[in-house]
């Protein structure tokens, strides 16, 4: 599978893994390895003196680029401060920007998201925004200087897959930056569909971390993303209303009468 580039950085795998929801660090490690992901997201939270092990060590051992997010932020101001804290802690100016507008659906707050994106781009960040599946907002985020756009398939952790395939196609068609389907993936076919629809990558966590066997699901997602990408590149046949025979219509024997 051909790699892809975000903001001048090349990644071999088009699957990005979120580390949320895994039972423990060992499960993170086995799943990340099985997924083949080269980018993994983390959240910034208060230090817990009782916590054991180092997530950063596990991800570094797996060869992952660590992408901090601003999960839990409901305002542009908090998201900007969280991104700055992540830059200080992790020495990266990359950020997965999340600004949530509703705690039941965890849907993004469009106006706060755009404001935060503009501010962070102005401060030199490489901004990867988690956005609604809205082509107009995606365009605004790209115009603001975001390095990618990451539309949701459906709400975070819902496993409902891609609810608006039409919007996703519009976003793919218009975008000059990478499009990464982020959130809502439930199973392998959802990830394959995202790639077949023309997404450059898929970001998921819950579908793997909350699966009964996370490492096995991680391996399935790796194959699904590859299969979807290759099918897209191969060029699918058009949909038809009626059959089109695949065996020759000439030379059929007369066997009755």
């Amino acid at each position: 599978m051909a790699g892809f580039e975000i903001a001048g950085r090349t990644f071999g795998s088009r699957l990005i893994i979120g580390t949320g929801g895994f039972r423990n660090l060992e499960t993170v490690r086995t799943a990340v390895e099985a997924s083949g992901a080269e980018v993994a997201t983390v959240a910034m939270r208060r230090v817990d003196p009782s916590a054991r092990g180092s997530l950063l060590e596990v991800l570094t051992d797996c060869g992952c680029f660590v992408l901090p997010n601003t999960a839990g932020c409901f305002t542009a101001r908090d998201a900007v401060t969280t991104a700055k804290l992540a830059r200080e802690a992790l020495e990266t100016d990359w950020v997965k920007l999340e600004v949530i507008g509703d705690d039941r659906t965890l849907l993004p707050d469009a106006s706060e998201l755009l404001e935060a994106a503009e501010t962070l781009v102005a401060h030199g960040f490489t901004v990867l925004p988690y956005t609604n599946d809205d082509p107009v907002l995606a365009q605004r985020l790209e115009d603001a200087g975001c390095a990618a756009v990451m539309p949701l398939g459906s709400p975070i952790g819902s496993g409902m897959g891609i609810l608006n395939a039409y919007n996703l196609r519009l976003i793919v068609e218009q975008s000059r930056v990478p499009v990464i389907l982020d959130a809502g993936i439930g199973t392998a076919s959802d990830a394959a569909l995202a790639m077949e629809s023309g997404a450059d990558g898929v970001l998921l966590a819950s579908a793997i971390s909350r699966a009964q066997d996370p490492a096995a699901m991680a391996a399935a997602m790796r194959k699904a993303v590859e299969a979807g990408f290759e099918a897209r590149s191969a060029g699918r046949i058009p949909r038809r209303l009626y059959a089109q025979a695949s065996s020759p219509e000439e030379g059929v024997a007369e066997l009755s009468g």
Partner: protein
Amino acid sequence: MPAVTLNGEERRLPDGATVADAVRASGIEGEARGVAVAVDGEVLPRGEWRATALDEGRRVEVLHAVQGGC
């Protein structure tokens, strides 16, 4: 002994305590890699921790990376 709010809990730190002391009090040992600090909602760069004294009532957040995302 100034009382500060450290990661949401009221704590008394010794007179003259700095942000570096607060980071240790939060449970971080050694060089504190992967850690960032906000004082009263503003990021304080690592290079300023030792030189920044904590007055009464300051709000200190000591954060690090945890599992998260989607």
